[in-house]
């Protein structure tokens, strides 16, 4: 466990850091990091988290990097300890990270997390002059792999998704045959 360079983060990362809406506080780079820190902490504690899509997309590489630090460098590395201390302000989570989560991925490469999309939530905001104003929130699920919960996409869900349309059945069969060749 030397201080060698870390491998790639196997997750799509935007070339620009997104600005996140920061609740009551003045938006700034520090506020953005605080939002992400809270998401990461919640995800390490609960291992599967439902949140706004853009925040899930932003937080995923941070979570990946944190797990990767634990896997590649180990708990005794100075840099890893500093990052864990800041990103997981609750002490028991650092222990959980090193003893429960990191050993799952000892021989596995990044990505260690999954990101699923849920149907968007539409919430009514207010009514003005008999006209209703709604806001739409895209929702996503961020989960750490090999968690004890049942999988998000179960094996049965694939069968239920099969379309009864004749054209689709023929096309899927043709594709299957081509791939098998």
């Amino acid at each position, binding site marked *: 466990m*030397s*201080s*060698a*360079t*870390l*491998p*790639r*983060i*196997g*997750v*799509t*990362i935007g*070339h620009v*850091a997104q600005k996140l809406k920061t609740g009551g506080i003045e938006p700034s*780079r*520090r506020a953005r*990091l605080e939002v992400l820190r809270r998401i990461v902490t919640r995800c390490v504690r609960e291992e599967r988290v439902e949140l706004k899509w853009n925040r899930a997309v932003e937080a995923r*590489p*941070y979570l990946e*990097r*944190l797990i990767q630090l634990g896997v*590649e460098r180990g708990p005794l590395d100075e840099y890893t300890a500093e*990052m864990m201390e*800041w*990103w997981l302000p609750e002490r028991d989570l650092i222990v959980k990270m090193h003893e429960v989560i990191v050993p799952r991925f000892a*021989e*596995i*490469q*990044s*990505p*260690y*997390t*999954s*990101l*699923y*999309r849920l149907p968007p939530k539409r919430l009514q905001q207010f009514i003005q002059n008999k006209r209703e104003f709604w806001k739409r929130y895209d929702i996503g699920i961020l989960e*750490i*792999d090999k968690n004890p919960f049942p999988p998000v*996409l179960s094996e049965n*869900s*694939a*069968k239920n*998704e*099969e*379309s009864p*349309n004749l054209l*689709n*059945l023929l*096309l*899927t069969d043709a*594709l*299957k045959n081509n*791939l*098998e060749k």
Partner: protein
Amino acid sequence: MLRRSLGSLRSFSSKCKSEPQTASKSSNTIRKEANLVGHIAAFPEIYPDFLQSPVWNRRNALKEELERRDMLERRMNIDIPEFYVGSIVAVTSSDSNLGAKEHRFVGICIRREKEGLHHQFTLRNTIEGIGVEIMYDLYNPTIKKIETLKLEKRLDSDLSYLIDALPEYSTFDFHMEPLAHPAGTPIPINETKVKLKPAPWTRRWEIFGCAGIEDSWSGATPWFKRKLQKTKVNDYEKYDLVAAYREGSTLEHEVAVQKQIQKFENERHAAGLTRRRILRSAAAAK
């Protein structure tokens, strides 16, 4: 509807982009690859010119490949030794203005910047009481010889503060004998803490937090001390893991570059023209 039915073919086909991004179950091959290649852990420090640009959008695979080929050719023609910021280096370059056509300068390396063919390093020395810095392009063809007279590191990776330090810290003998570094021993870290000249300085050293300066805060003027209350101090930036990832290097890239260097070396050695070795580490055992 077709998209949903494709879900049943998940086991056959590769990931469609409309599929959710799930965790990978495949084994970690990069560490094994790195061990096979004999990856040098200190690669980013020994060969900072072979890394990628710290600006994410300027990383261009074609440009890097073309530059790397030229860099390896140059390294086969001339011996570019290992040196760090804080090592004492002597550079002999050709100068048409002088009688002997050669110009030699000895100094401490204060910074190394830029990636690829543009990699630059600056040497600093004090000549007759006047501090002189010369910036050299590492791959400039007019450089005839680069020698490391003393291989060592300092507490910082950027010694720009030597401008505002007392002249004794930047003075090095032009006719210094090269000190050989025994192979296999780790690079010594020179832990000198430099004393600065009385303020005002060229930059606000009291904010930078350089480990190599002895007590910059008490040397700062009261005006700057009062200004600190309004200065935006960005200590939290070091916790931004993804920003560091965008600027930094990956193990995959380093291993690929190291493989390329080894292949190039083997080809040239097999052709029988030189026995010069490019890939070496003074700290690693022979």
